[in-house]
């Protein structure tokens, strides 16, 4: 046998032995990682189902699908023991939302999805961290993904006035889209009085050509009594094609 063949066979043997030793270790590690993920999800579930018996039962408004098949949502009133703490309260309503309505066809979020964590920043932005099934099991499509997000934002809007905006994370990470369409890189307006969540008024607007702006005026500072999202963006210096 040529010398080089002996070398190749030798190296291959060594590789097989190393692989045989490493394989069970790799399997053990994979199992441990899966278990850890399961534990986090379970822990989140437990934390959210823990109810302080002293908390008063309040009528919460939850948004699930209307069942018309047209992507609209319908509110259902559910009596829940709700905390006065906005973070706990958000978790409680979102968990009930995730648990789903009596009629499973009206679900807006996948049954396996779990809320892993929720934080509330002082500026009113809630950061909700969901488990991976929210991204992998939400049906792909603009309508279905928009419905999933709308059901979350409208439920928060109806029950937790402190939450102004919502940022959605998937397993602690920012992702580009929910399931291929809906943008998750930004934040969603929650307390909008219907600006983002309801279809915007769509009466055709005839825009007269505006004169070119020679100098851009300093943008007026947003005032507290004016909602920031109300003014429409106005293109300046129109140029005819």
């Amino acid at each position, binding site marked *: 046998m040529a010398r080089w063949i002996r070398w190749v066979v030798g190296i291959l043997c060594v590789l097989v032995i190393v692989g045989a030793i490493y394989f069970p270790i790799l399997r053990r590690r994979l199992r441990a990682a899966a278990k850890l993920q399961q534990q986090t999800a379970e822990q989140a579930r437990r934390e959210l189902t823990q109810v302080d018996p002293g908390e008063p039962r309040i009528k919460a408004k939850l948004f699930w699908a209307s069942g018309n*098949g*047209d*992507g609209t949502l319908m509110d259902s009133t559910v009596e829940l023991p709700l905390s006065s703490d906005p973070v706990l309260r958000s978790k409680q309503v979102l968990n009930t939302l995730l648990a789903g309505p009596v009629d499973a066809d009206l679900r807006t979020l996948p049954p396996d999805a779990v809320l892993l964590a929720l934080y509330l920043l002082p500026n009113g932005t809630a950061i909700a961290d969901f488990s991976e099934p929210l991204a992998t099991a939400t*049906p*792909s*499509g*603009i*309508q*279905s993904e*928009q*419905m999933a*997000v709308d059901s979350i934002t409208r439920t928060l809007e109806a029950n937790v006035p402190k939450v102004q905006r919502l940022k959605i994370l998937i397993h602690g990470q920012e992702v*580009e*889209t929910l399931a*291929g*369409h*809906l*943008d998750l*890189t*930004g934040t*969603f307006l929650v307390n909008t009085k219907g*600006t*983002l969540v309801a*279809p*915007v008024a*769509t009466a*055709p*607007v005839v*825009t007269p*050509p505006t004169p070119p*702006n020679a*100098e*851009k005026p300093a*943008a007026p500072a947003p005032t507290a009594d004016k909602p*920031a*999202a109300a003014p*429409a*963006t*106005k*293109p*300046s*210096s*129109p*140029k*005819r*094609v």
Partner: protein
Amino acid sequence: MVLDPAHGGTDPGARGTGGIRESEIVLDFAAQVRRALESQGFQVVQTRQGNEDPSFDDRSALANAQSGAVFVTLHIASTGLPGTARVYVNSDLPVAADLAGLISWDRAQTPFQGLSRRLGNLVQGLLAQRFKGSPSTAQTAAVRQLRTTAAPAIAVEISSVVVENRADLDRMGPGVADAIATGIAAFRPSYVVPTTSGGTP
């Protein structure tokens, strides 16, 4: 005209139980829309010709590279009343121009939102005439593809991949193509390219 058959490559998009793949159907639809547009005298560019999956930014870049483009991204939904079609325009974002009046790449759609809405309503109105049960005006959604597109941009989503027979979707092709081409032709005279102040010397 930039036509974007969504998904492709390793990303099949929405999938029906009967094996219908969004990425394949939108490619067929794109061919029909393209023919309808070309017959109206439009020059058409597609973001993909076959089974590739360009990034969101690469798709937007095709429209952003030219002045006066219109962008249409085609989708098949997982949900919705079968036989209906919806047009989406991007959610109203707060104006994010910097001091020089420049809009950052990732908010490229911002100055075009009014135009997108006008185009969306035109196309949606025509789709509603052809497909009963479709809404009469364009809807708003945070569609990732539209956000980085610096042109009047709409997403057209057809319901849905859950139909048992693919022929049910294929039958909608000519109506969708005609509505998009007619809508864009009607939009053309009112298309004025917005520029951000200070953006040009």
